[in-house]
């Protein structure tokens, strides 16, 4: 009986701890200070405001496949793959994990990217698929905020940009004539 009791109490403790951790991980808003609370500060905080990607073209379009359509509707599909390594530089004020979440890829890893190129055309048309490499360069615009002693955030005019790069990536285009 005592063993059963100990087991149940143990389960109770494990359950309580899990619940606290679960609640912690699902919390979205930080705890706001109560009115009148005096916090250390003022201190600065940085937030991502914009993220963007610039497209840099390399080389001319290369014809991959050309297809004349004998039926009512045709589809041409070609998959082009390239392996790439990602990197990060510039002014980085927010955690790298936050930048990775904004951009949708991890920094400092090699991954292979495939792009499926497809085009449709109608009877009597010729559809041509072209491809070339592009280099996406990402910018993450971070703005500085001042958090005062009452926990209020004040946006400043100061912004900095962190840059991330994926190496060459295939892209495709098609034309029908």
């Amino acid at each position, binding site marked *: 009986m005592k063993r059963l009791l100990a087991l149940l109490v143990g389960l109770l403790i494990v359950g309580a701890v899990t619940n606290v951790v*679960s609640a912690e991980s*699902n919390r979205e808003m930080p705890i706001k200070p109560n009115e009148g609370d005096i916090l250390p500060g003022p201190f600065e905080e940085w937030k991502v405001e914009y993220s963007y990607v610039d497209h840099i073209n390399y080389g001319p379009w290369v014809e991959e496949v050309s297809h004349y359509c004998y039926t009512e509707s045709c589809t041409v599909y070609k998959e082009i793959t390239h392996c790439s390594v990602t990197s990060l530089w510039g002014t980085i004020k927010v955690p790298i994990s936050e930048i990775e979440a904004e951009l949708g890829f991890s920094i400092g890893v090699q991954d292979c990217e495939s792009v499926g190129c497809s085009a449709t055309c109608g009877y009597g048309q010729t559809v041509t698929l072209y491809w070339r490499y592009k280099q996406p360069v990402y910018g993450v*615009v971070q703005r500085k905020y001042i958090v005062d002693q009452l926990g209020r955030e004040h946006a400043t005019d100061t912004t900095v940009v962190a840059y991330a790069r994926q190496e060459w990536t295939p892209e495709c285009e098609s*034309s029908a004539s």
Partner: protein
Amino acid sequence: MEKFEWTIVVVSIFLFSALLVGISNEKSVESLRCSSDIFLSEYVAYVYASQNDTINVPIYWCPSKVGKNVSIVLYLPSFNAWVSYNKSSIRRSFRGYFKLQVPVPIMLNHSRNIKNLSLSILIRDLNSEKNLIIPFGNWSFEISNKKNSYELVITEYREEVFTSKMDTAFITYGLGIFNPTNTTVYIMNLSYSLSPSKVSTMAVACYNVTSISDLPWVTKIDDIPKDLMLSSGGCIILPGKRTYMLVYMKVDPSVRMLLLRPKITYKIGNRTESMPGGTMRFIRVPKMCECGFR
């Protein structure tokens, strides 16, 4: 004593069950986020294009809980264009959303505004199939008489801008233009035909830099030196040289998604010509997508 111990056992079981219910409730908050498919697809768009041009227009998908064998077909009835994706060809993009490109063949022979375009979507999983019709937005097409060959080459351009901000946004569109001809070219304007109350140009400037990454992120108009502002004489590109242009724009909060393929007007010799710029999208994404494939 035995009765007391049984009471403790019963109370413990009750408390433990209550805790389990608490945990499962927390998880249901998480799963709620992925309980339905969310698409970002409703553009306000201006496209300058030639007849028979095709542009790829991405939509962004935060999926509900679908399996790894998912496939998705996108069909744009107004342009009779479709594309299909399977799991391996779908990649995560900004803010966790999956990016799906819709090819839009511009089979128009004159300029046209098309309102309330819609996109049909078929999502197939092992045991289920879903048909959705989602808004694709309001599009303004300006058709150039020229075929696809242009004298100038767009070497770099800003392709996508994302923000979580839902208020008035100030964004920059940049591009690099190379002049392969042996005649000096003057870029007179970068323009688009959209309601100024929705999207307006605050400034256009010419920069002599070596890469698009050297263009500044402008947060206020004073960030652009006055001598770089586009003058009435245009922005000069010498033969065999490249220049960079920056358009500083204001976007109204009502515009959640903007697609812009601007018209570049330039003078070469005694001719005035025009050509399309690179296509830029501006997307507001208030919440991260944390959903994925099982």
